[in-house]
C-alpha cells in the first residue's frame, strides 16, 4: 500500500482541532520508527551474513560451512586449520574476492542511488537510468581500448571516475531548471546520454583487438566473473571514500527535500553541498563500474524499498541503502553463478531483468500521482 493513500486530504474542521496532549503521540511515533529501523538493520545484516555464507559454500566445488569458518579462523591466526589445496584456493582466490567485490559494488550503487535521488530531489534518479554508469563505462572501456596504464592497476578506475564525473555534471546541468529537476527532463536526458555513451563504447569496440574485445564485452553486460584481489584493491579507495563521506550529508539531504531555496534558508550552503555530492556519486559509480561494468537498477530499487519500509529520512536511508545494495548484489551474483550451471549468467542482465519492471511500476505510480507528465 502506498503511504499516501491512507490519509484523507480533507481539511480538519476547526471544531475538531486536536484535544489530546500532542508530545506523547509524537514521541511514541518516533520511538516506533526507531525500533522499526533497528529491526530493519538487524534483518538486513542477518540476511547479508546468510548470503555471505551461502556464496562461499555454494558453487561447482562445494565447501561445507564449518570448513569455511575453520579456514577463516586459521588465516586470522585464531586457531582453526587450513583446508586442502583445492578448496583453500577456491575459497580464497575465487569466491572471497568475488564476494568482497559484490559487496563493495552493491554498497556503492545503493548508496549512490540514495544520494542521487536526494540531490536531484527526484525519486527516479539512479546512476544507470540517467547515464552516469554509461559515462563511467566509456572511461573504463576507452582506457582499455587505448591501452592506457598511467596509474597502474588504478588506471581503469581513474578513467571511469573522470568520465563519470563529467557525465554527472553534464546531466545535472542539462536536466535542471529553476532549481528543480522534472521527471521527464531527467529521463529524457538519461536516454540521450545513454545513446551517446553507447555510441562511444561502440566505437571503442570497433577499434579494439580480440583480447580487448573480450574485456570490453564484459563491461556492457556487467559481471563479477573476473574478480581478483588486485581488483578489490583497485576500487577500495574510491568506494570507501564515497561510503564514508555520504552519511555526513544525511541531515542536509533531508532539508533539500524542501527545495534548494528553502534548504538555503535553513542554513545549508546548497551550491557547495551539491558539488561535493556530485563528486561522491561519481566516486561511488566509478568504483562500481570500473570492476563490474554497468549494473543498473540496484541504486533505484534498494532506496525505494527502504523508503517505503522506514520513511524518507536520509540518516537511515543513506547507510541503509549501502547495506541493502550490498545484500542485493551479493544475492544477484550468487544467482548469476548458480542459476544456469554450468554456464554463468551476466550479473547486469539479472539486475536489469528484476529492476526494469520495478522502474516501470515507479514510472506509472509517479505519473498517476502528479496527474500526467504535462
Amino acid at each position, binding site marked *: 500500500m502506498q*503511504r*499516501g*493513500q*491512507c*490519509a484523507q*486530504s*480533507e*481539511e*480538519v474542521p*476547526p471544531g*475538531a*482541532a*486536536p484535544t489530546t496532549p*500532542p*508530545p506523547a*503521540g*509524537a514521541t511514541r*511515533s*518516533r520511538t516506533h520508527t526507531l525500533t522499526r529501523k533497528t529491526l530493519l538493520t538487524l534483518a538486513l545484516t542477518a540476511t547479508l551474513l546468510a548470503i555471505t555464507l551461502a556464496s562461499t559454500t555454494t558453487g561447482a566445488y562445494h565447501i561445507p560451512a564449518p570448513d569455511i569458518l575453520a579456514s577463516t579462523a586459521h588465516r586470522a591466526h585464531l586457531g582453526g586449520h587450513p583446508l586442502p589445496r583445492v578448496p583453500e584456493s577456491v575459497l580464497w582466490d575465487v569466491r572471497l574476492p568475488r564476494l568482497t567485490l559484490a559487496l563493495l559494488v552493491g554498497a556503492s550503487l545503493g548508496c549512490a542511488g540514495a544520494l542521487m535521488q536526494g540531490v536531484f*530531489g*527526484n*525519486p527516479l534518479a539512479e546512476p544507470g537510468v540517467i547515464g552516469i554508469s554509461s559515462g563511467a563505462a566509456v572511461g573504463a572501456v576507452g582506457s582499455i581500448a587505448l591501452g592506457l596504464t598511467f596509474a597502474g592497476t588504478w588506471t581503469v578506475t581513474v578513467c571511469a571516475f573522470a568520465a563519470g564525473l563529467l557525465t554527472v555534471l553534464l546531466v545535472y546541468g542539462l536536466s535542471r531548471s529553476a532549481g528543480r529537476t522534472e521527471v521527464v527532463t531527467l529521463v529524457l536526458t538519461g536516454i540521450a546520454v545513454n545513446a551517446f555513451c553507447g555510441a562511444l563504447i561502440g566505437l571503442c569496440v570497433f577499434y579494439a583487438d580480440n583480447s580487448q574485445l573480450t574485456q570490453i564485452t564484459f563491461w556492457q553486460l556487467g559481471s563479477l566473473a573476473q574478480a581478483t584481489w588486485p581488483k578489490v584493491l583497485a576500487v577500495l579507495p574510491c568506494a570507501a571514500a564515497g561510503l564514508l563521506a555520504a552519511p555526513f550529508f544525511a*541531515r*542536509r539531504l*533531508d*532539508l*533539500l*527535500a*524542501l*527545495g534548494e*531555496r*528553502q534548504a*538555503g*534558508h*535553513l*542554513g*545549508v*550552503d*546548497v551550491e557547495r553541498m551539491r558539488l561535493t555530492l556530485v563528486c561522491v556519486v561519481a566516486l561511488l559509480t566509478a568504483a562500481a563500474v570500473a570492476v563490474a561494468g554497468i549494473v543498473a537498477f540496484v541504486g533505484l530499487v534498494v532506496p525505494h524499498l527502504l*523508503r517505503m519500509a522506514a*520513511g*524518507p*529520512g536520509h540518516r537511515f536511508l543513506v547507510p541503509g541503502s549501502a547495506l541493502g545494495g550490498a545484500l542485493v548484489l551479493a544475492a544477484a551474483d550468487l544467482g548469476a553463478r548458480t542459476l544456469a550451471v554450468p554456464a554463468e549468467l551476466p550479473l547486469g542482465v539479472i539486475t536489469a531483468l528484476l529492476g526494469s519492471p520495478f522502474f516501470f511500476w515507479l514510472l506509472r505510480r509517479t505519473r498517476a500521482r502528479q496527474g500526467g507528465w504535462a
Partner: protein
Amino acid sequence: MSLLPAALRRDRTAPPPPPRPGEVLARARELTVRLGPRPVLHDVDLDVTAGHVLALVGPNGAGKSTLLGALAGDVPAESGGIALAGAPLTTWTPRQLAMRRAVLPQSAPLAFPFTAGDVVRMGRAPWAGTPLADEDDAAVAEAMAVTETTGFADRPYPALSGGERARVALARVLAQRAALLLLDEPTAALDLHHQELVLRVCREQAAAGKAIVIVLHDLGLAAAHADRVAVLAAGRRTAYGAPADVLTADLLSEVYRHPVEVLPHPRTGHPLIHPLRDPTP
C-alpha cells in the same frame, strides 16, 4: 581586524542575542532589483522593526514577493542594499542568516513523503550543534500547537490538504525561532478561521519581540492586524505607515485601479475595505 565586516568577526555558530524592543532588524535603502531586463523594485526604503507586524500589500506584480526575496537574501540587489542586524546581507553565511531570519515561501512542495512532524523539525536545522538544540522538542511542539497542526504530526506531508500544508510550513518557520520572520502570503490557502489564527500568531510573535514581514492580499486582514503597512505599486513604495493612515479610499482606488470605499468598523474602528460594485440590474 576592524576592517572585517561585523558578520565575519562573529563566531560562526554563536547564537545571536535576542533583539531589543524597537531594534531595526532589517533595513533596505534605495533598493533597486532587476529580474532579467525588467526592473522590479525602484529605490525602495524599508525598516523592519522588532515588535512590529509589517504588511506588504499592493496589486499583482507590484514587487511584494521580490522585496521579500531581497530581504531573505535570495534576490541580489542591483543598487542600494539591505542590512540585516547591522551588517550588509551579503556578508552573512547561510548558517548565520538562518539563525536570524526564517522564510515562508508561497508554495511548499516536498520531494519525499516526510511526515508533517519531520517537516516542522527541519526548522531546527540551524541550531544543530549549538546549546539551543536542547530546545528542539519544545520548539517543535509549541510551533505545532499554535498552528493547530499537532493532530497530523504523523501524517505524510504530501497527503495533507493545501490548507494543512500551509500551516505545517508556517509551523516549520516558527520552530526556527529566528528574530525576523518573512512570510509570503501565508493566508492564501486558508479558511477564515485559520487566516485569523495565522495573523493572531503573527501578533503574538511580534508581542514577544520578533519582527514580522507578511505579504497579504486581503487588505482587511492587513488593516486589522498589522502595525505598519507598506503599499507597493509598480515596484515603488507608494505609501508607508499605520493602517488607518495608509489604507485610504483615494490611495487604494489609484493603486488598484478600481474604485474602493473604506469605512470604519462600527465597533472596532478598523478600516473596512470594500471594492465598489455596480448594482446588479
